């Protein structure tokens, strides 16, 4: 019989919990498809201009801090690991492990955003690399470098926004996990959130080489 802890109580439109969970998963996959198209438009624009303005984009890429970018990449990949472990903990009904892994994932996600804000973007602002705010670079290829930074801030900014939303969602799940709402037969919400988290991670895995590693310096 169904778990008496009605965390995700059966919504009235569904016949049974299984249908509800399948619907939630499919809904998340479709939502991720729309996200692929959304980021895809940006990637398409970036790729076209990267080909049109190779020297400028390479120069812009060199002005980014690869070390911090790599650090952030590591942070995110670890957070995907902890997220996967959280899902597994939920699957196995291990409440304490689930809570710990969720906290870790949240911490790593916040670390990512903080590193980006304080170490990268603040530096970019100080150096005058922010189009629209204070872009003051005036060497060769200045215009295409400005365009590069436009794409850089737009793409990493939208990505960071998705991270923040993800952290929020995980926060809500954390509270529910603490209250013992998840178990082997009702861990679907954690799994669905995990899907979203992994997707955000994958977007970064594409962003990092495209933004930081072009220009043939490696």
């Amino acid at each position, binding site marked *: 019989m169904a778990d008496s802890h009605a965390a995700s109580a059966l919504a009235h*439109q569904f016949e049974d919990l299984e*249908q509800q969970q399948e*619907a939630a998963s499919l809904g998340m996959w479709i939502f991720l498809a729309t996200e692929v198209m959304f980021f895809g438009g940006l990637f398409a624009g970036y790729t076209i201009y990267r080909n*049109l*303005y190779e020297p400028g984009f390479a120069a812009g890429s060199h002005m980014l801090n690869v070390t911090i970018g790599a650090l952030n990449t590591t942070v995110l990949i670890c957070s995907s690991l902890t997220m996967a472990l959280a899902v597994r903990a939920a699957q196995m009904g291990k409440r304490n492990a689930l809570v710990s892994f969720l906290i870790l994932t949240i911490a790593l996600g916040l670390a990512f955003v903080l590193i980006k804000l304080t170490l990268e973007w603040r530096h970019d602002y100080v150096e005058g690399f922010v189009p629209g705010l204070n872009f003051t670079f005036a060497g060769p290829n200045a215009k*295409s470098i400005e365009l590069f930074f436009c794409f850089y801030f737009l793409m990493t900014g939208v990505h960071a926004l998705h991270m923040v939303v993800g952290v929020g969602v995980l926060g809500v799940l954390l509270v529910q996990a603490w209250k013992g709402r998840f178990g082997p037969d009702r861990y679907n919400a954690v799994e669905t959130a995990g899907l979203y988290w992994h997707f955000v991670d994958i977007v970064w895995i594409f962003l990092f080489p495209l933004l930081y590693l072009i220009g043939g310096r490696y």
Partner: protein
Amino acid sequence: MATAAGDLENRVHYLNADYGIKSWLLTTDHKRIAILYMASITFFFLMGGIAAVLIRIHLIEPNGAIFEPGTYNKLFSMHGIIMVFFFMIPSIPAVLGNFLVPMMIGARDLAFPKINLLSWYIFMVGGILTTYAVIWGGVDTGWTFYTPLSTTYANTNVLSAALGVFVSGFSSILTGLNFVVTIHKMRAPGMTWFRMPLFLWAMYATSIIQILGTPVVAVTLVMVALERLFHVGVFDPAVGGDPILFQHLFWFYSHPAVYIMILPSMGVVSELVTCFAKKRIFGYSFVAFSSVAIAVVSFLVWGHHMFVSGQSVYAGIVFSALSFVVAIPSAIKVFNWTATLYKGSISYQAPMLYALGFIGLFTMGGLTGLFLATLATDTHLHDTYFVVGHFHYIMVGGAVMGYLGGIHFWWPKITGRLYPDGWARLAAAIIFIGFNLTFFPQYMVGYLGMPRRYAIYPPEFQVLNVMSSAGASILAVGYAIPLVYMIWSMRYGPVAGPNPWGAKGLEWETPSPPPTENFEQTPVVTEEAYAYGAREV
């Protein structure tokens, strides 16, 4: 037994289950949300329609009867933006789709009712923003926002209009997401994919386009906004951008978008033709697969809007070929609907008149698409009134008539009331006549070379313009009449009962108006769609 009218009042259904503004504004019932949408899009249709009336009056005179060119430009931009994004795209999916998708599959609601309500609020926010943009100061870039005009040279409310459209896109995405999950996961026992009414296949195909296409135009509008604010050089060549890239990104969505506008109507027509001929659809799987084929191929043809843009000849050839391919599934549907009438038992109530009108007008308008898919003729016809005639035949002669047919068909289910069919048929006839008078001359004046979006035109085009404007006045009358009798029917119309048309479909096996939960018990499906001619149970 209580009278039918008493039954309407005594029985609890979704309309009287709860009263008060909160019960409407915070509803998660897909049927109430459908009505919220119906009210909103009717408002936007009136707004866009008033713009159209003003445009046609202005064009009676070659030098423009009323407006300065600057104001005229704002009018046609407003007409396009409001009609495309706030009427056509939501119309059938958000009104009829929301109401019927759960009922047709035997479910109690959509998969995500709260997201459904959210999508209406998002739509309203987008609508309010855009209304502000077009009324207070206006926008004069056309609904197509071509750069660098929109990013750099226009000094009208481009940002707020773009923002309004951007926001409304999410409403479209969420509706599509809801439908796809619902159709995949919540069909009643026995309702296999190939037992679904074709309206559901059409909604499914439409939803795929909404989900995959809308995000691209969303991100494109973000880039336009950024360009306008910061001049970074993404679309403005003066600072290194590529204006043709904008066109590619814009049309990548906006071409599939026109299939968002027509596919649902095609789904409605399948329902109407089968009911009013009392026959199963001829070639069910062909019609079903055609819907999906149209959705898929629609993503491959956007370049046919750009044959004279300066894109390469080879790109033009590829897009032209694919544009012909996308016409074929639509042709298949037209033949199948026509064949459905063969040896049927045909009655001519208003919904059927709209359906038959759709088939004829869509055929003519769709075939004018061939003129535009053909590279050599498109060179001459691009951006002339021929194009305006083409898309209005499909969208007004096609999609709007499909919408009206659907509203007339399911009105008894939605409201529990019947409207006077005589007036309805009269209105349908007036609309048909007014429509053809308005838009057929546009093909002719287009081939003669009259460009579109012209506030002032050479005098030799006046006769055809006056004919078009005369037709528009008739069309306006035709649209006004249903407003009157539909509203009248809500109070004074005869009670409809569960199935006034004798139609097949799960939605007709529940009372009119339906209870909030749609069905007392989850139905079990044992027969094919449109099982007319089966023994009455």
